[in-house]
């Protein structure tokens, strides 16, 4: 399996679903239309000649200031061919929604929950899309680039009195 052959196969299958093609250090990456994302993953998994059975990684990226602002990146590996392919799909800022890969790859479950928790990208078809890392009552999605870092003023001897006056110390 090589990149050119894989790309030709997928082009034939998906047609205009492939928006852009890239290559980095020998790894093929495809930017897909949202409608073609699930179909591409399913085809890559189920076609006996391809056999990309292993979802290595699934995560989200925030390109603040670009449209579509968010991107979901999934790496599929074919253990039979020793080959990796990267699928990317964009999600608009207004309503970031992407099809879930959990029905195809159960391992996508937690990774999609993490992406949802930290970036606020919703996954259609996910069995239970809830927060996984942050507390359940958390407001916002902290890995977004416009989320405040939430740092607090550091107490030194010259300013500790004013800080300690409003710091919520625990009662015993």
């Amino acid at each position, binding site marked *: 399996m090589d990149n050119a052959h894989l790309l030709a196969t997928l082009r034939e299958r998906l047609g205009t679903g492939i928006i852009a093609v890239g290559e980095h250090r020998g790894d093929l990456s495809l930017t897909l239309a949202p409608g073609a994302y699930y179909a591409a993953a399913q085809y890559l998994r189920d076609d006996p000649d391809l056999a990309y059975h292993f979802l290595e990684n699934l995560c989200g990226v925030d390109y603040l200031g670009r449209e579509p602002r968010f991107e979901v990146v999934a790496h599929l590996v074919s253990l039979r061919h020793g080959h990796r392919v990267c699928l990317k799909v964009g999600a608009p800022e207004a309503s970031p929604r992407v099809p879930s890969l959990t029905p195809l790859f159960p391992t996508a479950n937690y990774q999609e929950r993490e992406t949802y928790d930290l970036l606020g990208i919703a996954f259609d078809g996910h069995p239970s899309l809830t927060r996984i*890392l*942050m*507390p359940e009552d*958390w407001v916002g999605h*902290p890995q977004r680039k416009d*989320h*405040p*870092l*939430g*740092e*607090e003023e*550091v*107490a030194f*001897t*010259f300013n500790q009195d004013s800080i300690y006056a409003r*710091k*919520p*110390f*625990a*009662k*015993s």
Partner: protein
Amino acid sequence: MGIEEKAGNLGVVTTSLEYVVNWGRTNAMWPLLFGLACCAIEMMGAQASNYDLSRFGMELNRASPRQADLMIVAGRVSRKMAPVVRRLYDQMPEPKWVVAMGDCAACGGVFNNYAIVQGVDEVVPVDVYVAGCPPRPEALIDGIMLLHQKVMREKISGQKEQPVRLQQPLIQVK
């Protein structure tokens, strides 16, 4: 059958109940068995044979809060972990003490962000802060010795000492 046979008639020793109770408490403190981050490695080092915390009656780390009376918060406390730490503290029987080990537990350390509680004293009342990232086992043992001194000054009524505040900055800028 004991020390009186070897040492002869010791007679009667008088002391205050407060002293004896506090002395008993200092020399059999059982820490709660948990570590939250990298500082826990140094805590384990302090308990291992090189530094040997059991010299001070603390060889037992209890895995149940019901059997522990010292909480060593070794590491950063994330906002999600904070309710758990508080619950463990509430489950410990009185009297109980807390050592905030390391910069993260004391003040948030290098993690000045949304995810980490800026000092575990927002969650549980801390008796002794141990500085360092991570503190060496000697520093932790020093902090525990400091706690022992503090316990020795406690009143029999169970009143704890008020925290000591610096009256003037440590570093004076002229």
